[in-house]
């Protein structure tokens, strides 16, 4: 595909002026190897400076530009135009992540997302005194959590989950993946504390293994698999506690 003109449709919303969200269209020049983010930046820098969006590193590390692109939750900087359109004149749609309050345009209010994140105690909990040197971990032990450590907290998974759409109080895959990451960390002693949090009416058991989180994750983390491991751990933990 050569250089082309694309139609960009963006779901806009300004709470100070608008009654509700609405779609606006823009004509944008694009190269197949442009990122979806660069088209938005073209709109903001050359067509309409009032467009609001989050972005920082623009290289798939900071996780700030997750949004719904062509109806799917993606990281705007990590998806290429050639993977979104067939050719000249095609349309790409951009909308904020679903099931979160919109601050403005493509920016969602992430406070609830990070509240859930903090609930699962996403830090190392240890019983003993701090060692003189680093806490050691074998490659095999690290392999258990390596995939989960790749999470960049973009929120694409949590806002792709139908359980989140139905129940905003649901902890969601991102927070519970963090719970998995620390619960299965060989250096951590806080498994029971964390399992108490995820084993709740709005926690682990509302994951129905729909796999939307896996599809949305820009880092290809096998989230459903790790949440299933966490469920087994919670179930066996409950069984051993009762025994």
């Amino acid at each position, binding site marked *: 595909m050569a250089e082309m003109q694309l139609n960009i449709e963006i779901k806009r919303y300004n709470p100070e002026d608008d009654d509700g969200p609405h779609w606006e269209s823009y004509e944008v020049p694009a190269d197949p190897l442009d990122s979806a983010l660069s088209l938005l930046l073209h709109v903001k820098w050359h067509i309409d400076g009032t467009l609001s969006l989050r972005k920082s590193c623009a290289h798939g590390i900071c996780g700030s530009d997750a949004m719904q692109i062509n109806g799917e939750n993606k990281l705007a900087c990590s998806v290429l135009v050639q993977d979104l359109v067939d050719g000249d004149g095609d349309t790409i749609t951009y909308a904020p992540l679903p099931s979160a309050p919109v601050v403005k345009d493509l920016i969602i209010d992430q406070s609830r997302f990070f509240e859930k994140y903090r609930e699962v105690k996403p830090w190392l909990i240890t019983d003993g005194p701090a060692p003189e040197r680093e806490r050691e971990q074998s490659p095999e032990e690290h392999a258990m959590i390596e995939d989960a450590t790749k999470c960049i907290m973009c929120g694409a998974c949590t806002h792709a989950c139908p*359980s989140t759409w*139905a*129940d905003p*109080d649901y902890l969601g895959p991102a927070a519970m993946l963090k719970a998995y990451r620390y619960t299965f960390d060989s250096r951590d002693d806080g498994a029971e504390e964390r*399992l*108490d949090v995820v*084993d*709740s*009416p709005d926690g682990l*058991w*509302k994951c*129905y293994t729909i796999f939307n989180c896996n599809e949305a994750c820009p880092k290809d983390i096998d989230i459903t698999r790790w949440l299933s491991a966490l*469920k087994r751990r*919670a*179930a066996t*933990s*409950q*069984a051993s506690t009762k025994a």
Partner: protein
Amino acid sequence: MAQTNALNWFLHRITGTFLIFMLITHFWVQHYDHQAASVTHEVVTEKNEMPDYPDEAKEGVRARLGPDAAATPYQVVMQRLADPVYAVLWKGFNILFLVVALHHGFYGLNNVMTDYIRAPMGRLIARTLSWTVALGLLIIGMYSVITAGW
């Protein structure tokens, strides 16, 4: 404090696995295998005719109900559940099927309800009501299975 639903989640897995095999068995015996005295042959075909059961089934119905009794689908099922040899097997199968299906279905229903009912009291009421309905269906179902063929 944990509000564990771990046991129900675990049972949901187990009942799901059971249901795969039990549903296949149920559909095969009840709806497809003519020689095993299917009951809805006339329903699943367009002939609207009574299925032609094996002589053993016809004789069994006549022995139980009298020489003029016809081998209707209902009577053939009752015959299977009254059979002195196989009744325990089929009644056991149907009761297990009932328990497994009720748990699987109502646990799923509870999950859906708690997706949309978020107040703790509302959830408690919904959970209590739904499991009460499940218990009612269990009693009706068990009564039907146990007394079938008597």
